[in-house]
């Protein structure tokens, strides 16, 4: 992609930094107050995601390999290897994806950020939260994790924080519910 006429002088969100810099140091915009302290999901989330990738990749490569083996042994081995490599690449990218999750509680609203390729940052005023879900799938449960999901009246505002330790999730849920109550506003 050719760079247009004025590439220089982008103070933040510049072109090169995010793709080359380490995980978590990507240039996230922090609205208004610079001293927003980002909180991260539990490190166990990375393990959960790795297990997920493994669960998908290993049987898939096995099935693919067997299916390919009906044609020729080389094809089977090739397919299995390709799927395994894809799984490994996904595993390498996981660390950055997991590290991109973060949330920050400000005085009047909650910030949630995520994403590596497409980066998203949501601002959800406490008063706009209609209800808060805490959910945990089987894998998350076995690791003692939970996902907190905030719902506003707008379907588009999708804000969730995965991989919180269960106690922390419960605390966050109660905290948000209380804040929501205090800030409540009608439609």
């Amino acid at each position, binding site marked *: *992609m*050719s*760079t*247009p*006429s*004025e*590439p220089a002088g*982008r*103070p*933040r*969100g*510049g*072109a090169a930094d*995010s*793709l080359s810099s380490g995980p978590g140091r990507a240039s996230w*915009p922090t*609205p*208004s107050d610079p001293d927003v302290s980002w909180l991260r999901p539990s490190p166990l989330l990375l393990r959960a995601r790795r297990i997920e990738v493994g669960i998908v990749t290993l049987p898939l490569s096995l099935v693919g390999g067997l299916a390919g083996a009906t044609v020729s042994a080389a094809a089977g081995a090739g397919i299995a290897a390709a799927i395994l490599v894809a799984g490994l690449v996904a595993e390498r990218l996981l660390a950055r994806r997991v590290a991109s999750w973060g949330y920050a509680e400000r005085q*009047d*609203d909650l910030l949630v950020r995520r994403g590596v*390729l*497409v*980066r*998203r*940052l*949501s*601002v*959800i*005023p406490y*008063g*706009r939260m209609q209800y808060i879900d805490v959910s945990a799938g089987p894998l998350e449960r076995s690791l003692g994790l939970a996902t907190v999901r905030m719902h*506003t*009246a*707008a*379907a*588009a*505002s999708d*804000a969730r924080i995965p991989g919180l330790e269960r106690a922390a999730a419960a605390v966050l849920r109660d905290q948000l519910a209380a804040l929501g109550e205090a800030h*409540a*506003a*009608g*439609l």
Partner: protein
Amino acid sequence: MTTPLPDELPGQAAAGDPARALDDSAWHRLHPLSPLVRAGRQLASLLVLLFGISVLNEHQNNGNLVIDVVVIAIALAGGFVSWLVTRWQVADGVLRIDTGLLRRESRRIPLAQVQAVDVAQTGLARVLGLAELQLRVAGGDSARGGRLACLRRADAEELRRELLAMAAAASQGTRRARLAPAAGLVSGAEQAAVADLAPPCSLARPAGPAPVTGGRATPASLPPARVLFRISPQRLAAAIAASRTGAIAVLAAGATAAAVEISGSAHTVEPFLPVLLGVAAGLWRQFNGAYGTVIVAAPDGIQLRSGLVQTTAETIWPGRIQAVRVTEPLIWRAFGWCRLDVDVAGVRQRRENQAEGQRLRALIPVGSRAEAEQMLSELVASRPRPSRPAPQRVRWKAPLSYHFLGWGSDDRYVVASRGRVCRQTTWVPLEKVQSIRWEQGPLQRRLGLATVHLDVAGRRVSAKIEDRDSAEALEILSRLPDLARAARSGGR
């Protein structure tokens, strides 16, 4: 009886009159002819089916006829039973509808949460002088709305007015009850509550002590309704012809004609018939839905009536509008036409033409720019313009939509325009903003751009401030939450 929302009582008391008329806890029934109207839909589809079957196989349609008659009889009988077991009541600011024979269902709709009340008429209902009352509440679940089908037309209109008045009173009461103890300054909070309820624009109810429109009060005491917009049938027909549906219709007709011409036999039409019928039905639905649209600024909101065979009447409270969008398709732009939609929280009840339920509500199906401007000035008090264009380098990313991208804001509204062929300009009241999202894709990151979304509680509209300079997007992101908060807390 339990009162699900006890905090509405002060509102009721404050409202006084409008509540009392209906609030007698008496149970009412629907109109005895309503089974016929409700079966009318099945009846119509059965007739079509019957026609189709008898055309296809002319020989043994006798047996089919018997079956059809039996089916219609069953539908009517079912409708009658459901009429027998359905009753409704208004008590303590709650509309209660009980229905069901085997599975009893009792639905309570707190009037304070009602977003809009519509009156709809199918063709058959119009012949019989009946109408259906539809209540909309916020939330994505259509099962939470209420439907009274059918009542006498005059009764439905009357009930609509009363329910709206009670809803206004009740929601004001709730707000007051909630705000007063929390804020501790009753007068200020009350003012805020009133301010929140009153339409944010020149539609304002008669300035004075009570914004609670006396739905029950004599109509003479209210200012006369102003007609804001009236559609012209010719322009509607022309606009539909120049729309996408029209283009498809022309294409389909042309393809059919070409096929007939090439093959030289009239029988070639047959495989095209379903398509042609579908296209014709689409054209008809658009025309029927928008025909005769009249918009009136009434004391209790903006009243909207439309329909040729099947008519609907809706009332939209300006204070409940989540977004206003003006759409200018390519061909319409040449004629200076546009469409104006509003988005209101809450789903419409499903009904015959479902497509309409999924769309935004078109206030102006097609109108001139001047008409749209006038309507906008009613809906959007201060009209900021999308005056800030996108930076030059957006050309690289969005060559087609670059020239339409822009945004603007003041302390109450944000406006954003976008679109490739069709220009869409969306106004969103800051006080309605539910959440704000900042987004940056890989290409945008290269170019130092970002997009900011403003989500509102409507069905599908979110104002999208697309492709701004990163620094500007950041500034938007840090400023808007504060502005929205200020707008919410009633700083008018």
